[in-house]
């Protein structure tokens, strides 16, 4: 029994390694894809293009402009007229346009307060908002409010607020979901397409064993990918902190891989061709990923979506992994994430299991 099981697992693994296209895609997804997402997607405002028109003749305006530097701002570009500045903003070459009006400095000397006119390309809303905040913070440094309050702000878990670490982790979890479903569905549907699935079910081996072995082999492939991705990309390249226990993460990933294999079983049961597998997986996966809180924290969602997100296993997986890597939550406090993944996972897996095991 155990021997048959492992023979079947080995058969699937050999089949997987023989299709080099699939191996290449799995390797790519677990390494380069995560790297590109982590290195490329930057949501913090950085390197902002600034232009200015200075009608004052230097002094205070020069001091302020010299404070705009890397990494937040590019070197400010001078424009001779407001029209030229605004044209550049309309062509989206400049994001922040500052205008120092001719009486800017006079007002500051006489009344102790003055203002800068600012044209802001606010299409990328978050970044524009941050640009505005950066500027206000710089200006606040010059002001003397006259109150002895010191503000001590600590950003916990990720003090430099590096987006790359978070993005790389979130992308890895999405890759696990995507491949977990597609690979599992593929091993069954390929047999269906070749007409060998019915024969498999009629063989003297218990069909339950076949299904278990087939899906287990794909879980192994995914876990291999997870090890590569966490070791090389997350820790090696991005220096993701590990404040919790790595064993807890792998355990959670293992359960989660079974959950997505369960979805894969269901997809395989209802589709007749690889084409339908692809369609269905995308249709199921997209809501799953978007209800997971990877892009938006759950409590900021529409109330109806918040309720719906309770049935997304990815939600528990992402929150759990975030807690393990960044927050360093104790193992005992992780039980809710484990419970979420395991309960949803077993329901999905057994449903898919029953469905694919039926002949014809």
């Amino acid at each position: 029994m155990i021997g048959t099981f492992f023979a079947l697992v080995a058969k699937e693994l050999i089949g997987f390694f023989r299709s080099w296209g699939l191996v290449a895609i799995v390797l790519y997804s677990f390494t380069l894809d995560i790297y590109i997402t982590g290195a490329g997607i930057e949501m913090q405002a950085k390197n902002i293009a600034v232009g200015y028109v200075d009608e004052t003749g230097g002094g205070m305006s020069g001091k302020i402009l010299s404070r705009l530097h890397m990494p937040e701002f590019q070197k400010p570009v001078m424009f001779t007229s407001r029209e030229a500045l605004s044209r550049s903003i309309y062509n989206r070459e400049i994001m922040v346009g500052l205008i120092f009006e001719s009486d800017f400095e006079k007002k500051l000397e006489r009344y102790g307060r003055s203002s800068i006119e600012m044209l802001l390309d606010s299409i990328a809303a978050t970044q524009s908002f941050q640009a505005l905040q950066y500027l206000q913070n710089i200006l606040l440094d010059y002001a003397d409010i006259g109150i002895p309050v010191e503000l001590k702000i600590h950003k916990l878990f990720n003090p430099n607020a590096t987006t790359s670490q978070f993005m790389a982790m979130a992308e890895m979890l999405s890759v696990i979901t995507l491949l977990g479903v597609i690979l599992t569905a593929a091993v069954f549907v390929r047999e269906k397409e070749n007409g060998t699935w019915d024969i498999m079910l009629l063989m003297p081996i218990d069909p339950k064993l076949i299904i278990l072995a087939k899906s287990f082999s794909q879980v192994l492939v995914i876990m291999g990918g997870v090890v590569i991705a966490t070791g090389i990309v997350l820790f090696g390249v991005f220096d993701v902190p590990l404040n919790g226990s790595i064993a807890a993460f792998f355990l959670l990933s293992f359960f989660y891989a079974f959950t997505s294999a369960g979805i894969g079983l269901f997809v395989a049961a209802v589709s007749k061709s690889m084409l339908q597998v692809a369609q269905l997986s995308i249709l199921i996966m997209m809501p799953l990923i978007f209800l997971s809180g990877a892009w938006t924290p759950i409590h900021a969602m529409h109330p109806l979506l918040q309720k719906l997100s309770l049935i997304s296993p990815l939600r528990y997986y992402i929150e759990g992994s975030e807690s393990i890597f960044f927050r360093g939550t104790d193992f005992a406090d992780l039980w809710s994430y484990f419970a979420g993944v395991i309960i949803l996972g077993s329901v999905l897996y057994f449903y898919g299991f029953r469905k694919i095991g039926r002949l014809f």
Partner: protein
Amino acid sequence: MSPGVIRAYILKEFRELLRSRLILIVYILPTMIIILFGYGIRMEVTDARTLIIDNDNSTISRDLSARFEHSRYFDTRVTSGMGEQEALKRIKQAKVDILVIIPDSFEKRLLHGEKTEIGVFIDGAFPVRATTMQNYVKGVIYDAARSLTDKKPTNLITVNSRNLFNQAMRDEDAIVPGLIGLILLVAPAILSALLIVKEKEEGTIFNFYSSPIKKSEFIVAKLVPPLILHTVNIFILFLWATWLFEVPFRGSFLLYWAASQIYIAISLGVGLLVSIITRTQIVAIVLTIIITIIPGFLYSGMLMPISSMSGESKIEAHIYPVMYFNHIIYDTFLIGQGLDSPKNRLYLTILFFYALFLILLGSRLMKKELS
């Protein structure tokens, strides 16, 4: 090329699309993407769960807490006497986003002009949100401080900001036009790649190899159905954007249509190239997704403006077609310069030649024989 042959082949393709229910994905997928991403991506932070530990319980500290409570950015709870460790544990369990600690004798020291400090802890696991929350907290506390003092401030410089193009800084306006670009790049490419690779995988491609149909006729017949089907999506997506997400449309619809049509042709070219190097449908789908989605996000300007890029990412942005199309799309929706702007005219021309290049390259590389 014979029109009769092409017509017959196109009819066959449509019939197969209907029969395999592939047609559903053509219309469900784009709508689903725009709705999910459009509602799903929220960069703006509201209702950050804030815990204020007020160890002073004086007029000033209560006034400060009230300022947090009245802001829609915070969802505030005020307690006193909770230990710092206990409160930090709440953050670890992801039950609290922001923790503000007001020390005892805060008011007394303040009135005596002695130095005092407020401790703020922010959950930084989600970096952009952390930075935004930090700025909110700073804003509230500095505002409170400023209103407290009767001293005339010196050297106070304020910013009169005019927000152009997206006055209310809505996330929908920032993201939805970019999503149209993403969808029109991904979806037609997948469909056109599938239509060709399906025949390879099922072996029916030999009908093409052995029949007198010309290569050009085959390619036209394979690309026209996705082109027609996805042209409808240009209008559907426009309706979702303007009606459901209430994104303003300030430019010319004709430019939007023309640019989108060319962009679909580029996407079909990508699909054609993918179909040449792949043999199975699953590999074709995954490959198409890989080479379209990531650049489609990175160079869209949705998350990061192109003007903020530097070095290699700036060069890459100029290589992919995404940046050119998204510039035009954001212009038609939010800016409205249209063809008056030389940059838009240039970008439209680049897109046109891009499409031409990809499709010609695909036609040259495709072989009407067993490779």
